[in-house]
């Protein structure tokens, strides 16, 4: 029972996030009783859902030490619904301290300190501590932005990448840091320098993490892929468009699914194929498509090329486990409840199914992320949007509302189904004919 309780708490956080997503679908919630101290919108809901999901994955990996994870997830989740910058900073700091005490990773504390400092500078400079207040955007300056970006980078583990070491696997802190960075769009538009900085840093992080993941030993792949997804979220923020925010939201949702599937990279193989990004219409493939399409819609072709190459490297990072495992160092068994290959298989199968659901249901996911884009619209540029293609899939539009990339996922599925049926019939006919002619 003791082991299950944290999972129940984390599930409750994710469910609360889903409820909030429903309630804040049309407009952000700011109860008049709370006088601006509480403010919840679609970004808060997404943060809570992703924190809950990441916490549950951490629980699956190691159910014995999950109380601090639960506490940190709830603290970061509470920070996401705070309308007061000081309170938000305090809760983030507390969450970072809990994580640092649990994992011994000081980077979680230091990076959340950076983000907190950024929020405090924001409040002090602007003079308005409630970010929903009319003049709150006045506090946006380069110092606060740099601190928040550095905080997000540190929480994602990018500083260890620079040192040539494997990034610390602290996804909760990374999610908190990245969503706090996205929160800046609620205050107002970013200047071009900030967008450029986020793009460069995010693109470099995603590419370098994918490059390292493609040759990393099995135990380190999940950490490198986490950094890759963090890079994608930063790129989404740097694009500063509707397409960028959609990319950031989708990458945040895909990350825990891939992490769940990599609980045991040398386990059964077929689920890994659905997590590689090589299979069209799996979640990592759609994430890669969104990244490239958002960059092309923003007119950033070079960035699109880098993100495309990074996506190919990610295919190798996971795909090599799907094919062979002899040359790889076997992992020590993870302390899962009811140990055994069967349990690993079930977890990886669940991750694969979730990946397919996110990929095939991408139009629904993008529909769900609609309020997120709409509510941050005040800070976004018009250079790119991901739009639904009714009964067909997704389409990326540029600033002139012209389609620049198309992913007719539903049409493709039906078409490939028809082709598979035709091939099957043809092969059966050929076999029958062959048998009849001896």
């Amino acid at each position, binding site marked *: 029972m003791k082991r299950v309780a944290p999972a129940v708490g984390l599930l409750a956080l994710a469910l609360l996030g889903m409820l909030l997503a429903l309630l804040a679908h049309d407009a952000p919630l700011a109860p008049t009783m709370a006088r601006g101290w509480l403010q919840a919108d679609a970004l808060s809901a997404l943060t809570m859902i992703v924190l809950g999901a990441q916490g549950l994955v951490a629980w699956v990996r190691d159910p014995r030490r999950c109380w601090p994870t639960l506490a940190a997830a709830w603290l970061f989740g509470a920070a996401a619904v705070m309308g007061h910058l000081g309170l938000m900073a305090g809760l983030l700091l507390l969450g970072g301290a809990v994580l640092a005490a649990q994992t011994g990773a000081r980077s979680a504390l230091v990076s959340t300190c950076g983000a907190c400092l950024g929020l405090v500078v924001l409040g002090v400079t602007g003079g308005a501590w409630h970010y929903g207040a009319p003049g709150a955007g006045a506090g946006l300056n380069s110092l606060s932005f740099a601190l928040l970006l550095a905080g997000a980078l540190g929480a994602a583990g990018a500083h260890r990448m620079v040192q040539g070491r494997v990034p610390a696997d602290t996804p909760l802190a990374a999610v908190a840091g990245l969503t706090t960075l996205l929160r800046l769009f609620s205050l107002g538009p970013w200047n071009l320098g900030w967008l450029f900085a986020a793009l460069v840093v995010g693109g470099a992080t995603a590419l370098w993490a994918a490059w390292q993941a493609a040759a990393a030993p099995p135990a380190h792949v999940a950490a490198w892929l986490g950094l890759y997804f963090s890079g994608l979220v930063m790129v989404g923020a740097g694009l500063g468009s509707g397409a960028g925010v959609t990319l950031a939201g989708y990458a945040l949702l895909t990350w825990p699914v891939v992490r769940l599937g990599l609980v045991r990279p040398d386990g059964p193989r077929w689920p890994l194929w659905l997590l590689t990004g*090589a299979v069209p219409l799996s979640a990592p*493939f759609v994430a890669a498509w969104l990244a490239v399409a958002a960059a092309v819609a923003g007119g950033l072709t070079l960035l699109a090329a880098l993100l495309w190459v990074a996506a190919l490297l990610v295919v190798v990072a996971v795909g090599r486990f799907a094919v062979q495992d002899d040359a790889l160092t076997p992992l020590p068994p993870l302390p899962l409840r009811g140990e055994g290959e069967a349990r690993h298989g079930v977890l990886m199968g669940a991750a694969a199914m979730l990946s397919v659901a996110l990929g095939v249901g991408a139009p629904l996911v993008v529909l769900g992320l609609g309020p997120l884009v709409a509510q941050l619209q005040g800070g976004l540029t018009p250079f790119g949007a991901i739009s639904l293609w*009714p009964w067909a899939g997704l389409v990326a539009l540029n600033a002139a509302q012209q389609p620049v990339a198309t992913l007719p996922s539903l049409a493709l599925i039906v078409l490939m189904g028809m082709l598979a049926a035709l091939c099957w019939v043809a092969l059966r006919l050929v076999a029958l004919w062959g048998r009849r002619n001896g």
Partner: protein
Amino acid sequence: MGELLGALGLAWPRLLLYPGGLFALCASWLLARWLAWCAGRPAPPFSRPALVDIIDVVPPLAVLALLPLTPAARFPYGIDLLVALGLLEWPALRATMGHAPERNELARAYGPLVLAALAMAEGAGGMGLTGLLRWPTAWPLQALLLGGAGLWLWALPRVLAETPHGLAWRLRALGLLLVGSLPLVGALAASANSLPVALADWLIPPMVYLSLAFVLGGALRVRRSRG
């Protein structure tokens, strides 16, 4: 929903005859034989595909069926370059994983293809395959589109050399060649104003495919003679 079902109902000629179906099977077979002869490899043996091969065959076949080639009827749900490359490379990626590929090897093979795809996208104003057939009016865009197509075709000998035999691989080779040919078809169609449209639709594409197949064969022969 009705629109999708209607479009799929009208897609049968694409799936069965042209550009997928019979055309894809015959043209890919001829191309594979020609390329094998140029590369000095034994001709691919005729083998009956097994049921499991459907997993590898369907994605490249879907790309071929969706190519915006004239004179096939227009299909409203076109794909873009990333999806096309992802589907065409599915059999290759599945096979490549078997020997834990080097990152450099991967970057050398796909780097030029990715750059070429994005140069074409920049020239055409979007990644959609249908857009590659529209010849832009400004010369820098024309240069980008043609340069991208040239880079794509230049990268193909490396990608297509030493590939195993099999229906999925043959379809992949044909698909990669046809995607690279789209800007050339568009350029020729724009410059052949004097030809009646119906005649140009029937004449230009086969001419471009045949020329490119010859050029690709020549490139493979040169590659072989260099050792």
